[in-house]
Every structure is written in C-alpha cells, then in structure tokens.
C-alpha cells in the first residue's frame, strides 16, 4: 500500500486528468482516455511481472481478444448493451487466459516469455488471416457500447467525455481492487512466489494454481482494458494482439516501476504524453518525424537514472517531503 504522500500525489494526478474533458477538445479527451485505458492494461501486466514474477510477452492477446469479441457481439445497426456484452468479453478473455495460462505457467523464465509470445502470435495470425473480423484490415464497431436498463440508456460510451470518465472510474476501482487482492493472503502468496517459489512449495502452497489464478486475473483485467480501448475508436485490428503491443505494455511497466501498480499507470501516461511531445514539429522540427529515436533516448534515460521507474521517483519525492515535515 503506498504511503499517504504518494496517495496524495496520485489523487492530484487523477484530479488533473479529470479536468481534461472540461478544458480540452475531443482530441485531448481521446488522448487522455487512451492513457487511462493503457494504464489499466499496464497495471494488469504489473500483477504478473511485478508481483508474481511472470514476465509475459503475450499479454496483448487478452487486450486484443476482448476488443474483437466486442466487435463480434455488437449488432451492426445498434449499440451492444454492456450489461451482457462486457461479461461476454470478460468471460471469453478469462477462458482464454485460463487455457493459455494452464500451459504457460508450467514453464519458467525465458521459456515462459516464449510460450506466452507464441500463444499471442497464434491469436494474432488467427485474426490476421481469417475472414472472421476483417482479416488484416481490422473491423469497425459502428455503435459504441451502451449500458441500458430496458429502454433507458444509463451510460453511452459513444460520448467521448462519458467514455473518459467511465475509464477513469474503472481505473480507480480496479486499482483499489488489486490493492485489496495484494493485501489478502492470496497476494502475499504470489509475492512470496516471486521471491522464492521453492520456499512457497515447501510451505505447502501449490504454486502452479496460484500463478494460474494470477494469470487469469491479469488476463481478464487486460480484457477489460481491451473492451474500453476498442470503444475509443470503434475499431479493432490484429495489431492489438501483436507482440509490439505486448512490448509497449512491458515498456510502460518498466518505465513506471514494477511492483507498484500505480507506476505502470504513470508509465502509460508518460509514454503517450512524451510521444505527443516528441511528435510536435514546432518543438522538435524535422526530428519530430523520427520521434521514435527521441523516445528510445527517453526510455533509456529513465531506466538508467531511475532504477525503480517514474513510480519509484514519485515515492522518493513523497518520502523526502514527509521527512522534511
């Protein structure tokens, strides 16, 4: 659990995000929504990488799969009702995570990385090469999901501000939920597994089952992020399941700081924010067209100078302030 100072800093960050729809146009709202949704995605990966010690390189499989399921269950001429569409998306993602996890968590280290990557690429090529959902061209979700009770529409994710606030509330609820999970005995066991799996086995824990449960929880939350992400542009493509997407999520986790939950969210915000900055021609001239070079330098600097990422930096600053008081 983060200290009071860190929580205060996070609250300020949330408030700063919350005013975006009030002061920014649609472009900025969309960018902020993407930051939050990718933050949820990265946070789910942190449960695996930072707490369970499982470095997955195929986490985007669940992110993209959920988006595709939303496309498949959405009627062409009407919005899908979240009351059933969301549980279907999460159910399919959880099932996929259970099947993939049941086989993957038997392996360790680099083999786990390769197996998760292989499964994600299998799903990537399934959607890429089949006509199920537009193949390599991707597919549109013409009407964004709504939450309706009878004929009364309670939430319409078609509105950019509505989607933004829905995502923000989701982030807060999921963060609080994961903190509770990590404080519960289950959370202590997976943290023990990360440090010394043999020891946990000798204490009588079936570590395979615990790792599998953690994998399914992380996959399902990634699926939730995928559902929201597909709702932003109303478009899904095989790239959502690709290894690049999994790699970006890992960069967000490392950039923000592993094993903090909030760090990867900061990592996602920083990565998208800095990308936006480096692409600005007014600021960076012709280099803006090659913003990836600048981004590479930025990531290297953070990793070299801030071992615990931006989240670690926040903890350090908050700690120093409390000492000064």
């Amino acid at each position, binding site marked *: 659990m983060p200290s009071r100072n860190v929580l205060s800093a996070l609250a300020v960050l949330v408030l700063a995000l919350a005013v975006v729809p009030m002061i920014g146009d649609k472009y900025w709202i969309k960018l902020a929504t993407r930051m939050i949704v990718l933050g949820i995605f990265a946070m789910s990966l942190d449960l695996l990488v930072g707490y369970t010690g499982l470095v997955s390189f195929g986490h985007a499989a669940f992110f993209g799969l959920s988006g595709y399921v939303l496309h498949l269950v959405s009627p062409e001429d009407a919005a899908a009702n979240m009351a059933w569409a969301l549980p279907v998306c999460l159910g399919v993602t959880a099932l996929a995570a259970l099947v993939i996890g049941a086989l993957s968590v038997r392996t360790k280290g680099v083999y786990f990385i390769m197996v998760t990557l292989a499964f994600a690429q299998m799903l990537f090529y399934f959607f890429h090469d089949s006509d199920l959902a537009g193949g390599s061209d991707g597919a549109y979700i013409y009407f964004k999901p709504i939450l309706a009770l009878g004929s009364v529409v309670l939430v319409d994710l078609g509105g950019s501000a509505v989607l933004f606030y829905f995502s923000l509330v989701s982030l807060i609820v999921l963060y609080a939920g994961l903190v509770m999970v990590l404080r519960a*005995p289950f959370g*202590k*066991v997976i*943290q*023990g597994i990360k*440090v*010394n799996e*043999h*020891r946990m*086995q*000798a*204490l*009588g*824990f*079936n*570590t395979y089952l615990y790792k599998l449960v953690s994998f399914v929880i992380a996959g399902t939350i990634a699926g939730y992020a995928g559902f929201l992400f597909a709702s932003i542009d109303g478009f899904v493509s095989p790239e959502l399941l690709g290894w690049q997407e999994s790699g970006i999520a890992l960069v967000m986790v490392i950039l923000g700081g592993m094993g903090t939950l909030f760090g990867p969210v900061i990592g996602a915000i920083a990565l998208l924010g800095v990308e936006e900055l480096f692409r600005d021609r007014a600021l960076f001239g012709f280099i803006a067209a090659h913003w990836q070079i600048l981004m590479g330098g930025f990531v290297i600097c953070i990793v070299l100078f801030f071992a615990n990422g931006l989240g670690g930096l926040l903890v350090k600053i908050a700690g120093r302030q409390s000492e000064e008081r």
Partner: protein
Amino acid sequence: MTGPLIELRDVDAYYGSSHILHGLDLRLECGSCLSLMGRNGMGKTTTLKTIVGYVRPKRGSAYIMGRDASELATHDIAQAGIAYVPEDRAIFPNLTVTENLVMAARAGANGTRSWTEERVMTLFPRLAERRDHWGNHLSGGEQQMLSIGRALMTNPDVLLLDEATEGLAPLIREEIWSVISEIKSTGMSAIIVDKDAARLQDLCDQHMILVKGRAAFSGDRAALQNEPDILHRHLGI
C-alpha cells in the same frame, strides 16, 4: 500413524551428473529427534532436500507418512506435515514479520491449529517486538527465528532444521537451542542438521553421520557413546 514418519530406502540422489547420496537409508519415528552430522559437502542438506522433494531420488524410494514420495509434489509433502527450515532461511524481504507468519498459517495434516501467530510470538519475544519490520530489516538470528516460526505456523508433525544455528552470535545460538528443545518437548519429531555435535547429542535420541553421501554411523545415543572415536574420525572433534 504406526510406521515411520519418514523413510528413505537405498536412496541415490544426484545434482546433474554429481552423485551425492549413495544408497542412503533413513528412518524417523514418531516423536523422535534425529541428528544429521557430517563435514561440509557430505550430503546432509541434500538428504533434507530429498525428503521435501526438491531433489528426486534416481534410485531407491522415499516414503513420507507412509506414502510413496515419488507421487507427491513438494507442496503435498508439506501438507502431509513436513516443515523445512532451510539453511538460507529464505525470509520474504517484501513482507513484514507478521505477514511472513500469517501467510504460512495452515491447519496441520490432522486438522489442528495448535501453532498460532501469538504462540510463535510468545516463543520468540524478539519477533513480537519486530512485528511490523520488513523481512530484510531483521538480523540473522531474528531471520532464523522467523524461519522456524513460519515453519511452525504450518502446524507440522516433523520439523527439518538445516544448519539451525550457523553464523549466529553465541547468545542467539543459545536462544535458538532452547527454543528447539522446547519444540521437541511438545512431541514434535525433527531432523536437525548442525555443526554443534555436543548439542545434537544432548537433544536428539537418534544420530546419523554422513560421509560422502553414505551413512558412516546410524544409531541411538547409547550406540554413539559406545564409539567414542567416531566423532573425531568423521567430524574432527
């Protein structure tokens, strides 16, 4: 349970191609305390690791509570009532003292929960003083206490202690020995590995001396006393 709690029969164990245990036989009866003695590299730790299932015998067989250990995963062996306190203590640095204990809490194989957090804290008052300290903020002695306490929280029938007092200050060593003797008085069975042969002779009723993975001596206290030069020959004391 009428038979031995732990039984190794003619066990050969390897690390890769290195042959460590050679036809080892070992029996631990209910309520008994067995000392494993020997110089470094003679196979004491490997014997304990074979019992908990970290190392699988290539030949021979192991029985835990009468069950064939080849069919049991390490967590099954632990759930059957075997608690292992490893040489490196393996405290979880990211958990507090209380969390290290509570996380391991479980009813024993017979369903009893006689060891609780409070009972462990009473046994080790130093741990009670450091309830909220992180695992990596403890001294070596405190870590050993926590490691023993954590093993007790699983309410085991057998305690396996590897190098119980190695590297600890004399006062802390005394404290640990006194606690081990208190635990033994509850009727718990134990296999203890340590360099302090004198203490082991006082505490344990069965003794085994390992030399190059073979049992150079195996017998009770009286048998050991009948061979006064055996400790000098194999342990250099």
